[in-house]
Protein backbone atom coordinates (compact mmCIF):
# COMPACT_ATOMS: atom_id res chain seq x y z
CA UNK A 1 0.00 0.00 0.00
CA UNK A 2 1.38 3.39 -0.87
CA UNK A 3 0.94 6.18 1.59
CA UNK A 4 0.76 9.79 0.73
CA UNK A 5 3.26 11.74 2.72
CA UNK A 6 1.81 13.99 5.34
CA UNK A 7 2.04 17.15 3.29
CA UNK A 8 -0.04 19.27 5.63
CA UNK A 9 1.93 20.58 8.53
CA UNK A 10 4.07 18.73 11.03
CA UNK A 11 7.71 19.08 11.93
CA UNK A 12 10.77 16.99 11.28
CA UNK A 13 12.26 16.59 14.77
CA UNK A 14 15.36 14.84 16.06
CA UNK A 15 14.15 11.63 17.68
CA UNK A 16 16.77 11.21 20.46
CA UNK A 17 15.74 7.55 20.75
CA UNK A 18 19.15 5.96 20.28
CA UNK A 19 20.27 5.87 23.91
CA UNK A 20 17.05 4.45 25.28
CA UNK A 21 16.86 1.67 22.67
CA UNK A 22 20.43 0.42 23.03
CA UNK A 23 19.60 -2.13 25.71
CA UNK A 24 16.91 -4.80 25.57
CA UNK A 25 13.65 -4.50 27.46
CA UNK A 26 13.91 -5.59 31.09
CA UNK A 27 11.60 -5.70 34.07
CA UNK A 28 11.83 -2.99 36.71
CA UNK A 29 12.69 -4.15 40.25
CA UNK A 30 9.54 -4.83 42.28
CA UNK A 31 8.60 -2.09 44.75
CA UNK A 32 7.46 -2.56 48.35
CA UNK A 33 4.60 -0.11 48.25
CA UNK A 34 2.39 0.52 45.20
CA UNK A 35 0.03 3.49 44.79
CA UNK A 36 -2.89 3.08 42.38
CA UNK A 37 -5.02 6.20 41.76
CA UNK A 38 -8.61 5.33 40.89
CA UNK A 39 -8.89 7.94 38.14
CA UNK A 40 -6.02 6.82 35.91
CA UNK A 41 -8.33 6.47 32.89
CA UNK A 42 -10.61 8.79 30.93
CA UNK A 43 -14.18 8.98 32.20
CA UNK A 44 -15.52 8.36 35.69
CA UNK A 45 -13.13 7.23 38.44
CA UNK A 46 -13.42 3.61 39.53
CA UNK A 47 -14.91 2.63 42.90
CA UNK A 48 -12.92 0.42 45.33
CA UNK A 49 -14.27 -3.09 45.94
CA UNK A 50 -11.68 -3.97 48.58
CA UNK A 51 -11.17 -2.49 52.03
CA UNK A 52 -8.13 -1.53 54.07
CA UNK A 53 -6.46 -4.63 55.45
CA UNK A 54 -7.76 -7.01 52.77
CA UNK A 55 -5.40 -9.53 51.22
CA UNK A 56 -5.22 -9.30 47.45
CA UNK A 57 -3.78 -11.54 44.77
CA UNK A 58 -1.89 -10.50 41.66
CA UNK A 59 -4.42 -9.53 39.01
CA UNK A 60 -7.35 -9.43 41.42
CA UNK A 61 -9.90 -6.71 40.61
CA UNK A 62 -9.71 -4.01 43.30
CA UNK A 63 -11.94 -1.31 41.81
CA UNK A 64 -14.95 -1.45 39.52
CA UNK A 65 -16.20 0.95 36.82
CA UNK A 66 -18.85 3.48 37.93
CA UNK A 67 -20.26 4.67 34.60
CA UNK A 68 -20.51 3.79 30.94
CA UNK A 69 -17.08 5.31 30.37
CA UNK A 70 -14.98 3.92 33.22
CA UNK A 71 -12.64 0.99 33.78
CA UNK A 72 -11.73 -1.88 36.10
CA UNK A 73 -8.55 -1.64 38.13
CA UNK A 74 -6.52 -4.71 39.19
CA UNK A 75 -3.85 -5.28 41.80
CA UNK A 76 -0.43 -5.52 40.13
CA UNK A 77 1.06 -7.62 42.97
CA UNK A 78 -0.09 -9.92 45.73
CA UNK A 79 -0.14 -8.44 49.21
CA UNK A 80 -2.34 -6.41 51.52
CA UNK A 81 -4.28 -3.20 51.07
CA UNK A 82 -2.48 -0.72 53.32
CA UNK A 83 -4.81 2.25 52.76
CA UNK A 84 -7.45 3.83 50.51
CA UNK A 85 -6.75 7.54 50.72
CA UNK A 86 -6.13 10.66 48.60
CA UNK A 87 -2.71 10.58 46.99
CA UNK A 88 -1.15 12.87 44.36
CA UNK A 89 -1.33 11.53 40.82
CA UNK A 90 0.96 12.35 37.90
CA UNK A 91 -2.10 13.23 35.79
CA UNK A 92 -2.92 16.15 38.10
CA UNK A 93 0.14 16.81 40.29
CA UNK A 94 -1.50 19.57 42.36
CA UNK A 95 -4.73 17.81 43.37
CA UNK A 96 -4.65 14.50 45.26
CA UNK A 97 -7.30 11.94 44.29
CA UNK A 98 -8.46 8.74 45.88
CA UNK A 99 -5.95 5.91 45.46
CA UNK A 100 -5.46 2.35 46.75
CA UNK A 101 -2.07 1.74 48.36
CA UNK A 102 -0.90 -1.88 48.40
CA UNK A 103 1.94 -3.53 50.33
CA UNK A 104 3.79 -6.03 48.16
CA UNK A 105 4.40 -9.39 49.90
CA UNK A 106 6.74 -10.48 47.10
CA UNK A 107 4.95 -13.82 46.61
CA UNK A 108 3.25 -12.95 43.31
CA UNK A 109 0.21 -15.18 44.06
CA UNK A 110 -1.97 -14.94 40.98
CA UNK A 111 -5.75 -14.51 41.11
CA UNK A 112 -7.21 -17.90 40.26
CA UNK A 113 -10.27 -16.54 38.46
CA UNK A 114 -8.16 -14.91 35.69
CA UNK A 115 -8.15 -17.53 32.94
CA UNK A 116 -7.35 -17.39 29.22
CA UNK A 117 -10.34 -16.64 27.02
CA UNK A 118 -11.17 -18.47 23.81
CA UNK A 119 -11.91 -15.54 21.54
CA UNK A 120 -11.98 -17.41 18.24
CA UNK A 121 -15.38 -18.89 19.01
CA UNK A 122 -16.82 -15.98 20.91
CA UNK A 123 -19.31 -13.35 19.77
CA UNK A 124 -17.89 -9.85 19.27
CA UNK A 125 -20.01 -8.49 22.12
CA UNK A 126 -18.64 -11.17 24.46
CA UNK A 127 -15.07 -10.27 23.47
CA UNK A 128 -15.73 -6.60 24.20
CA UNK A 129 -17.22 -7.49 27.59
CA UNK A 130 -14.16 -9.59 28.36
CA UNK A 131 -11.79 -6.79 27.33
CA UNK A 132 -13.66 -4.49 29.72
CA UNK A 133 -13.07 -6.89 32.60
CA UNK A 134 -9.33 -6.74 31.92
CA UNK A 135 -9.23 -3.02 32.75
CA UNK A 136 -7.81 -2.34 29.28
CA UNK A 137 -7.52 1.35 28.38
CA UNK A 138 -5.84 3.13 25.47
CA UNK A 139 -2.11 3.10 26.18
CA UNK A 140 -1.24 5.63 23.48
CA UNK A 141 -1.93 8.48 25.89
CA UNK A 142 -5.69 8.98 25.71
CA UNK A 143 -6.34 6.27 28.35
CA UNK A 144 -9.85 5.88 27.02
CA UNK A 145 -11.50 2.61 28.19
CA UNK A 146 -11.00 0.31 25.21
CA UNK A 147 -14.24 -1.63 25.69
CA UNK A 148 -16.24 1.62 25.56
CA UNK A 149 -14.44 2.56 22.34
CA UNK A 150 -15.05 -0.87 20.81
CA UNK A 151 -18.72 -0.78 21.79
CA UNK A 152 -19.06 2.42 19.76
CA UNK A 153 -17.07 1.14 16.79
CA UNK A 154 -18.82 0.54 13.47
CA UNK A 155 -20.45 -2.85 13.45
CA UNK A 156 -18.97 -4.12 10.19
CA UNK A 157 -16.59 -3.16 7.42
CA UNK A 158 -14.34 -1.57 9.98
CA UNK A 159 -10.77 -0.82 9.08
CA UNK A 160 -8.59 -1.51 12.09
CA UNK A 161 -5.45 0.59 12.32
CA UNK A 162 -2.88 -0.41 14.95
CA UNK A 163 -0.84 2.66 15.74
CA UNK A 164 2.86 2.01 16.21
CA UNK A 165 3.91 5.35 14.71
CA UNK A 166 5.55 6.67 17.84
CA UNK A 167 6.29 10.21 16.80
CA UNK A 168 7.14 12.22 19.90
CA UNK A 169 10.90 12.65 20.40
CA UNK A 170 12.65 10.74 23.21
CA UNK A 171 9.78 8.24 23.73
CA UNK A 172 10.59 4.72 22.51
CA UNK A 173 8.36 2.37 24.55
CA UNK A 174 6.22 1.35 21.56
CA UNK A 175 9.34 0.87 19.42
CA UNK A 176 10.87 -1.55 21.96
CA UNK A 177 7.56 -3.33 22.44
CA UNK A 178 7.30 -3.94 18.68
CA UNK A 179 10.94 -5.03 18.39
CA UNK A 180 10.83 -7.56 21.21
CA UNK A 181 7.19 -8.56 21.55
CA UNK A 182 5.87 -8.28 18.02
CA UNK A 183 3.98 -11.57 18.38
CA UNK A 184 1.98 -10.11 21.30
CA UNK A 185 1.08 -7.08 19.24
CA UNK A 186 -0.10 -9.22 16.33
CA UNK A 187 -2.06 -11.53 18.63
CA UNK A 188 -3.82 -8.51 20.14
CA UNK A 189 -4.56 -7.16 16.67
CA UNK A 190 -6.21 -10.47 15.77
CA UNK A 191 -8.45 -10.29 18.85
CA UNK A 192 -9.41 -6.72 18.00
CA UNK A 193 -10.20 -7.69 14.42
CA UNK A 194 -12.59 -10.33 15.70
CA UNK A 195 -14.10 -7.97 18.28
CA UNK A 196 -15.18 -5.47 15.62
CA UNK A 197 -15.38 -7.84 12.64
CA UNK A 198 -12.79 -5.74 10.85
CA UNK A 199 -12.30 -6.31 7.16
CA UNK A 200 -8.83 -4.81 6.91
CA UNK A 201 -6.08 -4.46 9.47
CA UNK A 202 -3.03 -2.24 9.09
CA UNK A 203 -0.15 -1.67 11.48
CA UNK A 204 1.63 1.65 11.01
CA UNK A 205 5.23 2.33 12.02
CA UNK A 206 7.47 5.28 11.27
CA UNK A 207 9.93 4.82 8.44
CA UNK A 208 12.94 5.07 10.77
CA UNK A 209 11.77 2.12 12.91
CA UNK A 210 13.32 -0.57 10.73
CA UNK A 211 13.84 -3.27 13.36
CA UNK A 212 10.29 -2.88 14.57
CA UNK A 213 8.88 -3.16 11.02
CA UNK A 214 10.99 -6.25 10.40
CA UNK A 215 9.91 -7.91 13.65
CA UNK A 216 6.26 -7.16 12.95
CA UNK A 217 6.38 -8.55 9.42
CA UNK A 218 7.95 -11.76 10.70
CA UNK A 219 5.31 -12.06 13.41
CA UNK A 220 2.50 -11.50 10.90
CA UNK A 221 3.88 -14.23 8.67
CA UNK A 222 4.16 -16.53 11.65
CA UNK A 223 0.55 -15.81 12.61
CA UNK A 224 -0.81 -16.59 9.18
CA UNK A 225 -0.84 -13.18 7.49
CA UNK A 226 -3.87 -10.93 7.07
CA UNK A 227 -2.26 -7.82 8.54
CA UNK A 228 -0.38 -5.22 6.54
CA UNK A 229 2.63 -3.42 8.03
CA UNK A 230 2.98 0.07 6.56
CA UNK A 231 5.71 2.64 7.08
CA UNK A 232 4.72 6.29 7.32
CA UNK A 233 7.04 9.30 7.04
CA UNK A 234 8.57 10.15 10.39
CA UNK A 235 7.19 13.65 10.72
CA UNK A 236 5.83 14.73 14.10
CA UNK A 237 2.91 14.13 14.83
CA UNK A 238 2.52 11.24 12.37
CA UNK A 239 1.16 9.09 15.19
CA UNK A 240 -1.69 11.43 16.01
CA UNK A 241 -4.85 9.39 15.38
CA UNK A 242 -6.40 11.77 12.86
CA UNK A 243 -3.14 12.49 11.08
CA UNK A 244 -2.34 8.79 10.80
CA UNK A 245 -5.78 7.99 9.41
CA UNK A 246 -5.38 10.67 6.75
CA UNK A 247 -1.89 9.47 5.84
CA UNK A 248 -2.94 5.83 5.54
CA UNK A 249 -6.35 6.13 3.94
CA UNK A 250 -6.55 9.65 2.49
CA UNK A 251 -9.81 10.15 4.42
CA UNK A 252 -10.27 12.97 6.90
CA UNK A 253 -12.01 12.42 10.22
CA UNK A 254 -14.80 15.05 10.26
CA UNK A 255 -14.35 18.04 12.55
CA UNK A 256 -16.00 17.28 15.89
CA UNK A 257 -16.43 13.68 14.77
CA UNK A 258 -14.67 10.42 15.54
CA UNK A 259 -12.85 7.87 13.36
CA UNK A 260 -15.84 5.55 13.76
CA UNK A 261 -17.84 8.03 11.64
CA UNK A 262 -15.79 6.98 8.63
CA UNK A 263 -15.63 3.32 9.54
CA UNK A 264 -12.18 3.27 11.14
CA UNK A 265 -10.97 2.06 14.51
CA UNK A 266 -7.53 3.03 15.78
CA UNK A 267 -5.71 1.32 18.67
CA UNK A 268 -2.20 1.70 20.04
CA UNK A 269 0.26 -1.22 19.79
CA UNK A 270 0.61 -1.23 23.59
CA UNK A 271 -3.15 -1.62 23.95
CA UNK A 272 -3.10 -4.52 21.47
CA UNK A 273 -0.31 -6.23 23.42
CA UNK A 274 -2.20 -5.73 26.70
CA UNK A 275 -5.31 -7.30 25.14
CA UNK A 276 -3.23 -10.27 23.96
CA UNK A 277 -1.83 -10.82 27.47
CA UNK A 278 -5.32 -10.69 28.98
CA UNK A 279 -6.98 -12.94 26.45
CA UNK A 280 -4.20 -15.52 26.06
CA UNK A 281 -2.53 -15.49 29.49
CA UNK A 282 -5.26 -14.19 31.77
CA UNK A 283 -3.13 -11.23 32.91
CA UNK A 284 -5.17 -7.99 33.16
CA UNK A 285 -3.63 -4.57 32.54
CA UNK A 286 -1.19 -4.34 35.44
CA UNK A 287 2.07 -3.47 33.72
CA UNK A 288 3.38 -1.56 30.75
CA UNK A 289 6.61 -0.51 29.05
CA UNK A 290 7.87 2.86 30.27
CA UNK A 291 10.78 4.78 28.70
CA UNK A 292 13.11 6.36 31.23
CA UNK A 293 15.13 8.87 29.27
CA UNK A 294 16.55 12.36 29.08
CA UNK A 295 20.05 13.74 29.23
CA UNK A 296 19.80 13.84 33.03
CA UNK A 297 19.41 10.04 33.32
CA UNK A 298 22.58 7.98 33.71
CA UNK A 299 21.54 4.97 31.59
CA UNK A 300 18.30 5.59 29.71
CA UNK A 301 16.30 2.43 29.06
CA UNK A 302 12.87 0.98 28.52
CA UNK A 303 11.52 -0.87 31.55
CA UNK A 304 8.59 -3.24 31.88
CA UNK A 305 7.09 -1.76 35.06
CA UNK A 306 3.98 -2.71 37.02
CA UNK A 307 1.55 0.15 37.56
CA UNK A 308 1.86 1.70 40.97
CA UNK A 309 5.68 1.51 41.05
CA UNK A 310 7.18 4.77 42.30
CA UNK A 311 9.05 6.71 39.60
CA UNK A 312 12.03 7.07 41.91
CA UNK A 313 12.43 3.26 41.72
CA UNK A 314 12.42 3.31 37.92
CA UNK A 315 14.93 6.14 37.79
CA UNK A 316 17.17 4.33 40.27
CA UNK A 317 16.96 1.23 38.06
CA UNK A 318 18.40 3.30 35.25
CA UNK A 319 21.42 4.40 37.20
CA UNK A 320 19.74 7.42 38.81
CA UNK A 321 20.21 11.03 37.78
CA UNK A 322 23.47 11.85 36.01
CA UNK A 323 22.83 15.53 36.74
CA UNK A 324 20.05 17.53 38.38
CA UNK A 325 17.24 17.64 35.82
CA UNK A 326 15.94 21.04 34.75
CA UNK A 327 12.50 19.49 34.35
CA UNK A 328 10.97 16.10 35.12
CA UNK A 329 8.09 15.22 32.82
CA UNK A 330 5.56 12.48 32.29
CA UNK A 331 5.48 12.10 28.54
CA UNK A 332 7.71 13.77 26.00
CA UNK A 333 8.97 17.32 25.40
CA UNK A 334 6.07 18.28 23.10
CA UNK A 335 3.00 17.06 24.97
CA UNK A 336 4.24 16.02 28.39
CA UNK A 337 3.15 17.13 31.86
CA UNK A 338 5.78 18.58 34.18
CA UNK A 339 6.08 16.81 37.55
CA UNK A 340 7.32 18.66 40.66
CA UNK A 341 9.04 15.59 42.17
CA UNK A 342 9.63 11.92 41.38
CA UNK A 343 7.26 10.83 44.15
CA UNK A 344 4.52 9.71 41.79
CA UNK A 345 3.51 6.23 40.73
CA UNK A 346 3.43 4.61 37.32
CA UNK A 347 -0.03 4.92 35.79
CA UNK A 348 -1.67 2.96 32.98
CA UNK A 349 -1.14 5.95 30.69
CA UNK A 350 2.45 6.71 31.58
CA UNK A 351 4.54 6.07 28.49
CA UNK A 352 7.69 7.95 29.42
CA UNK A 353 9.55 9.61 32.25
CA UNK A 354 11.63 12.39 30.74
CA UNK A 355 14.34 13.90 32.96
CA UNK A 356 15.41 16.82 30.82
CA UNK A 357 18.37 19.15 31.02
CA UNK A 358 18.12 22.69 29.69
CA UNK A 359 19.62 21.60 26.40
CA UNK A 360 16.90 18.98 25.92
CA UNK A 361 13.92 21.27 26.29
CA UNK A 362 15.25 24.68 25.22
CA UNK A 363 12.95 26.72 27.47
CA UNK A 364 11.08 29.53 25.80
CA UNK A 365 12.23 33.10 26.25
CA UNK A 366 9.97 36.03 27.17
CA UNK A 367 6.81 36.37 25.11
CA UNK A 368 6.83 39.01 22.37
CA UNK A 369 3.98 40.30 20.22
CA UNK A 370 2.82 38.27 17.24
CA UNK A 371 4.58 39.39 14.06
CA UNK A 372 2.08 37.66 11.75
CA UNK A 373 4.77 35.52 10.16
CA UNK A 374 2.37 32.60 9.60
CA UNK A 375 4.84 29.84 10.55
CA UNK A 376 2.34 28.44 13.01
CA UNK A 377 -0.30 28.01 10.34
CA UNK A 378 2.21 26.31 8.06
CA UNK A 379 3.05 23.58 10.58
CA UNK A 380 -0.36 22.88 12.10
CA UNK A 381 -1.18 19.19 11.41
CA UNK A 382 -4.86 19.73 12.13
CA UNK A 383 -5.03 22.33 9.33
CA UNK A 384 -6.04 25.12 11.70
CA UNK A 385 -4.93 28.76 11.85
CA UNK A 386 -3.12 29.22 15.18
CA UNK A 387 -2.43 32.88 14.39
CA UNK A 388 -6.15 33.64 14.18
CA UNK A 389 -6.99 31.36 17.11
CA UNK A 390 -4.45 33.22 19.23
CA UNK A 391 -5.83 36.60 18.28
CA UNK A 392 -9.36 35.47 19.08
CA UNK A 393 -8.33 33.72 22.30
CA UNK A 394 -6.66 36.89 23.58
CA UNK A 395 -9.76 38.90 22.74
CA UNK A 396 -12.14 36.36 24.25
CA UNK A 397 -14.23 36.00 21.08
CA UNK A 398 -15.65 32.61 21.95
CA UNK A 399 -18.18 32.08 19.12
CA UNK A 400 -15.51 32.85 16.53
CA UNK A 401 -13.05 30.52 18.25
CA UNK A 402 -15.61 27.77 17.76
CA UNK A 403 -16.01 28.69 14.09
CA UNK A 404 -12.26 28.62 13.56
CA UNK A 405 -12.19 25.08 14.96
CA UNK A 406 -10.39 25.47 18.29
CA UNK A 407 -11.85 22.21 19.56
CA UNK A 408 -10.07 20.34 16.75
CA UNK A 409 -6.68 21.37 18.12
CA UNK A 410 -4.77 18.26 19.23
CA UNK A 411 -2.36 20.30 21.39
CA UNK A 412 0.65 18.77 19.62
CA UNK A 413 2.83 21.84 20.20
CA UNK A 414 4.09 22.30 16.63
CA UNK A 415 2.91 25.94 16.49
CA UNK A 416 4.49 26.64 19.88
CA UNK A 417 7.76 25.15 18.70
CA UNK A 418 8.13 27.33 15.61
CA UNK A 419 6.83 30.64 16.95
CA UNK A 420 9.62 33.24 16.65
CA UNK A 421 7.97 35.42 19.28
CA UNK A 422 7.96 32.55 21.81
CA UNK A 423 4.22 32.82 22.34
CA UNK A 424 2.90 29.96 24.55
CA UNK A 425 0.20 29.03 22.04
CA UNK A 426 -0.75 25.62 23.43
CA UNK A 427 -1.24 27.15 26.86
CA UNK A 428 -3.55 29.83 25.45
CA UNK A 429 -5.59 27.23 23.57
CA UNK A 430 -5.87 24.97 26.63
CA UNK A 431 -7.26 27.89 28.63
CA UNK A 432 -9.70 28.85 25.89
CA UNK A 433 -11.08 25.37 25.18
CA UNK A 434 -13.35 25.06 28.26
CA UNK A 435 -14.89 28.43 27.34
CA UNK A 436 -15.68 27.17 23.86
CA UNK A 437 -17.09 23.90 25.25
CA UNK A 438 -19.32 25.83 27.63
CA UNK A 439 -20.50 28.06 24.80
CA UNK A 440 -21.32 25.02 22.68
CA UNK A 441 -23.21 23.38 25.52
CA UNK A 442 -25.19 26.52 26.08
CA UNK A 443 -26.10 26.87 22.39
CA UNK A 444 -27.12 23.24 22.08
CA UNK A 445 -29.30 23.29 25.20
CA UNK A 446 -30.98 26.62 24.47
CA UNK A 447 -33.57 25.53 21.84
CA UNK A 448 -34.81 22.60 23.93
CA UNK A 449 -34.94 24.65 27.13
CA UNK A 450 -36.85 27.37 25.31
CA UNK A 451 -39.33 24.87 23.85
CA UNK A 452 -39.90 23.34 27.30
CA UNK A 453 -40.40 26.78 28.81
CA UNK A 454 -42.86 27.90 26.18
CA UNK A 455 -44.77 24.62 26.44
CA UNK A 456 -44.97 25.15 30.18
CA UNK A 457 -46.27 28.70 29.73
CA UNK A 458 -48.93 27.42 27.35
CA UNK A 459 -49.90 24.67 29.78
CA UNK A 460 -50.13 27.05 32.74
CA UNK A 461 -52.18 29.51 30.70
CA UNK A 462 -54.51 26.70 29.65
CA UNK A 463 -54.94 25.48 33.24
CA UNK A 464 -55.64 29.03 34.35
CA UNK A 465 -58.20 29.38 31.54
CA UNK A 466 -59.91 26.15 32.53
CA UNK A 467 -59.98 27.18 36.16
CA UNK A 468 -61.58 30.48 35.27
CA UNK A 469 -64.12 28.77 33.01
CA UNK A 470 -65.00 26.36 35.80
CA UNK A 471 -65.48 29.19 38.29
CA UNK A 472 -67.59 31.15 35.84
CA UNK A 473 -69.72 28.06 35.19
CA UNK A 474 -70.15 27.54 38.91
CA UNK A 475 -71.09 31.16 39.48
CA UNK A 476 -73.64 30.97 36.69
CA UNK A 477 -75.19 27.80 38.03
CA UNK A 478 -75.44 29.33 41.51
CA UNK A 479 -76.93 32.64 40.42
CA UNK A 480 -79.32 31.11 37.92
CA UNK A 481 -80.93 28.93 40.56
CA UNK A 482 -84.15 30.46 41.87
Amino acid at each position, binding site marked *: MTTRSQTRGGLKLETHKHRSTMRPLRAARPAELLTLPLDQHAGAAARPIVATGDLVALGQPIAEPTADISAWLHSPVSGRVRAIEPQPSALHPDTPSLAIVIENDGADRTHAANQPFDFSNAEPAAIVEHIARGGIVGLGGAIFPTAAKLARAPAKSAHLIVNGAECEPWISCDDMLMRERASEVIAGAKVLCRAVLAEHCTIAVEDDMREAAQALREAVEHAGGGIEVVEVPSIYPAGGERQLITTLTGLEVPSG*GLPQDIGILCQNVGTAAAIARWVHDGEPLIRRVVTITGSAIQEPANLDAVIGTPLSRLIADCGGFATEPAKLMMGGPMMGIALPTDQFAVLKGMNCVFAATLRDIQPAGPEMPCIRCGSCSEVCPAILLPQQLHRLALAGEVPELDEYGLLDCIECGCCDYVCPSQIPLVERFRVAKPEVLR*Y*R*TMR*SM*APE*ARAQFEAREVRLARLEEERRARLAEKRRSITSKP
Partner: protein
Amino acid sequence: MLTAALLAAGFAAALASVLARSSRVVPRSTLIERINDVLPQTQCGRCTFAGCKPYATALAEGRADINHCPPGGDTTARTLATLLDRPYKPVDPQFGITPAQPVVAWVDESRCIGCTKCIQACPVDAIVGASKFMHTIIAAQCTGCELCIAPCPVDCIELRPAQASQLSLSS
Protein backbone atom coordinates in the same frame (compact mmCIF):
# COMPACT_ATOMS: atom_id res chain seq x y z
CA MET B 1 -42.78 72.06 -19.69
CA LEU B 2 -46.12 70.49 -19.12
CA THR B 3 -44.81 67.02 -19.90
CA ALA B 4 -41.98 67.52 -17.42
CA ALA B 5 -44.38 68.56 -14.68
CA LEU B 6 -46.73 65.65 -15.43
CA LEU B 7 -43.84 63.20 -15.43
CA ALA B 8 -42.51 64.47 -12.13
CA ALA B 9 -45.95 64.41 -10.58
CA GLY B 10 -46.56 60.87 -11.78
CA PHE B 11 -43.36 59.60 -10.26
CA ALA B 12 -44.06 61.39 -7.00
CA ALA B 13 -47.50 59.83 -6.80
CA ALA B 14 -46.09 56.34 -7.37
CA LEU B 15 -43.51 56.87 -4.68
CA ALA B 16 -46.04 58.21 -2.22
CA SER B 17 -48.33 55.24 -2.66
CA VAL B 18 -45.53 52.73 -2.23
CA LEU B 19 -44.31 54.51 0.89
CA ALA B 20 -47.83 54.63 2.31
CA ARG B 21 -48.35 50.94 1.77
CA SER B 22 -45.08 49.91 3.31
CA SER B 23 -45.68 51.80 6.53
CA ARG B 24 -48.43 49.34 7.40
CA VAL B 25 -46.26 46.26 6.91
CA VAL B 26 -45.49 44.06 9.93
CA PRO B 27 -41.90 42.80 9.85
CA ARG B 28 -41.31 39.07 10.08
CA SER B 29 -38.32 39.28 12.31
CA THR B 30 -37.97 41.53 15.29
CA LEU B 31 -35.07 42.73 17.32
CA ILE B 32 -36.55 41.03 20.38
CA GLU B 33 -36.43 37.64 18.64
CA ARG B 34 -32.86 38.29 17.59
CA ILE B 35 -31.83 39.07 21.13
CA ASN B 36 -33.72 36.09 22.52
CA ASP B 37 -31.85 33.80 20.13
CA VAL B 38 -28.58 34.90 21.66
CA LEU B 39 -29.64 34.39 25.30
CA PRO B 40 -29.01 30.98 26.95
CA GLN B 41 -32.70 30.26 27.72
CA THR B 42 -31.94 29.24 31.28
CA GLN B 43 -35.07 31.19 32.42
CA CYS B 44 -33.44 31.67 35.79
CA GLY B 45 -34.55 35.24 36.44
CA ARG B 46 -31.18 36.39 37.78
CA CYS B 47 -31.29 39.32 35.38
CA THR B 48 -34.27 40.64 37.44
CA PHE B 49 -36.67 39.89 34.59
CA ALA B 50 -39.10 36.96 34.56
CA GLY B 51 -37.27 34.88 31.99
CA CYS B 52 -35.17 35.34 28.86
CA LYS B 53 -37.89 36.84 26.61
CA PRO B 54 -38.74 39.66 29.07
CA TYR B 55 -35.03 40.46 29.35
CA ALA B 56 -34.76 40.49 25.57
CA THR B 57 -37.71 42.89 25.41
CA ALA B 58 -36.10 45.17 27.98
CA LEU B 59 -32.83 45.13 26.05
CA ALA B 60 -34.59 46.00 22.80
CA GLU B 61 -36.36 48.90 24.45
CA GLY B 62 -33.16 50.10 26.07
CA ARG B 63 -34.40 49.56 29.63
CA ALA B 64 -31.66 47.09 30.57
CA ASP B 65 -27.92 46.85 30.07
CA ILE B 66 -26.16 43.95 28.39
CA ASN B 67 -24.35 42.61 31.42
CA HIS B 68 -27.23 41.08 33.37
CA CYS B 69 -26.90 37.45 32.31
CA PRO B 70 -24.59 35.22 34.46
CA PRO B 71 -25.43 31.90 32.74
CA GLY B 72 -24.54 33.46 29.40
CA GLY B 73 -21.35 34.81 30.84
CA ASP B 74 -19.01 37.30 29.22
CA THR B 75 -19.46 35.54 25.89
CA THR B 76 -23.14 36.47 25.71
CA ALA B 77 -22.38 40.00 26.95
CA ARG B 78 -19.93 40.40 24.09
CA THR B 79 -22.41 39.08 21.53
CA LEU B 80 -25.13 41.39 22.83
CA ALA B 81 -22.71 44.32 22.66
CA THR B 82 -22.09 43.60 18.98
CA LEU B 83 -25.76 43.02 18.26
CA LEU B 84 -27.01 46.20 19.92
CA ASP B 85 -23.99 48.38 19.18
CA ARG B 86 -23.36 49.17 22.81
CA PRO B 87 -20.04 49.17 24.69
CA TYR B 88 -19.03 45.77 26.05
CA LYS B 89 -19.08 45.23 29.81
CA PRO B 90 -18.35 42.01 31.69
CA VAL B 91 -21.23 40.44 33.62
CA ASP B 92 -22.05 42.44 36.76
CA PRO B 93 -21.41 40.24 39.84
CA GLN B 94 -24.49 41.64 41.57
CA PHE B 95 -26.60 39.47 39.25
CA GLY B 96 -24.63 36.34 40.00
CA ILE B 97 -21.40 34.57 39.15
CA THR B 98 -20.98 32.59 35.96
CA PRO B 99 -20.32 28.95 36.99
CA ALA B 100 -16.87 27.65 36.08
CA GLN B 101 -18.37 24.49 34.61
CA PRO B 102 -21.88 23.40 33.68
CA VAL B 103 -23.87 22.31 36.75
CA VAL B 104 -27.11 20.42 37.14
CA ALA B 105 -29.38 20.08 40.15
CA TRP B 106 -29.62 16.80 42.03
CA VAL B 107 -32.26 15.60 44.47
CA ASP B 108 -31.10 13.73 47.56
CA GLU B 109 -33.65 10.96 47.47
CA SER B 110 -33.12 9.98 51.09
CA ARG B 111 -34.53 13.35 52.19
CA CYS B 112 -37.14 14.15 49.53
CA ILE B 113 -40.66 14.33 50.98
CA GLY B 114 -42.58 14.47 47.69
CA CYS B 115 -44.08 17.96 48.14
CA THR B 116 -43.88 18.99 44.41
CA LYS B 117 -42.76 22.53 45.27
CA CYS B 118 -39.62 22.12 43.15
CA ILE B 119 -41.63 20.72 40.23
CA GLN B 120 -43.76 23.84 40.22
CA ALA B 121 -40.68 26.04 40.36
CA CYS B 122 -38.76 24.48 37.47
CA PRO B 123 -39.19 26.70 34.38
CA VAL B 124 -38.27 23.95 31.90
CA ASP B 125 -40.12 21.00 33.47
CA ALA B 126 -36.92 19.08 34.13
CA ILE B 127 -38.19 17.53 37.40
CA VAL B 128 -40.22 14.34 37.29
CA GLY B 129 -42.48 13.35 40.18
CA ALA B 130 -45.86 13.69 41.80
CA SER B 131 -47.33 14.37 45.22
CA LYS B 132 -46.03 11.83 47.78
CA PHE B 133 -43.89 10.20 45.04
CA MET B 134 -40.10 10.45 44.70
CA HIS B 135 -38.88 13.46 42.72
CA THR B 136 -35.91 13.29 40.41
CA ILE B 137 -34.23 15.68 38.02
CA ILE B 138 -33.68 14.86 34.35
CA ALA B 139 -30.03 15.92 34.17
CA ALA B 140 -30.02 16.27 30.39
CA GLN B 141 -32.77 18.92 30.57
CA CYS B 142 -31.61 20.78 33.67
CA THR B 143 -30.18 24.18 32.81
CA GLY B 144 -28.74 24.84 36.26
CA CYS B 145 -31.02 27.82 36.92
CA GLU B 146 -31.20 27.04 40.68
CA LEU B 147 -34.88 28.02 40.97
CA CYS B 148 -35.73 24.66 42.57
CA ILE B 149 -33.27 24.99 45.44
CA ALA B 150 -35.02 27.71 47.45
CA PRO B 151 -38.60 26.29 47.47
CA CYS B 152 -37.52 22.87 48.81
CA PRO B 153 -38.71 22.73 52.45
CA VAL B 154 -36.11 20.12 53.45
CA ASP B 155 -33.19 21.60 51.46
CA CYS B 156 -32.53 18.33 49.68
CA ILE B 157 -31.50 19.75 46.28
CA GLU B 158 -27.87 20.52 45.54
CA LEU B 159 -25.87 21.42 42.43
CA ARG B 160 -23.38 19.00 40.91
CA PRO B 161 -21.03 19.32 37.93
CA ALA B 162 -22.71 18.00 34.79
CA GLN B 163 -21.13 14.82 33.38
CA ALA B 164 -20.15 14.97 29.75
CA SER B 165 -22.58 12.14 28.98
CA GLN B 166 -25.42 14.15 30.53
CA LEU B 167 -24.87 17.22 28.42
CA SER B 168 -27.10 17.04 25.37
CA LEU B 169 -24.33 18.13 23.04
CA SER B 170 -25.38 17.95 19.42
CA SER B 171 -22.39 16.57 17.54
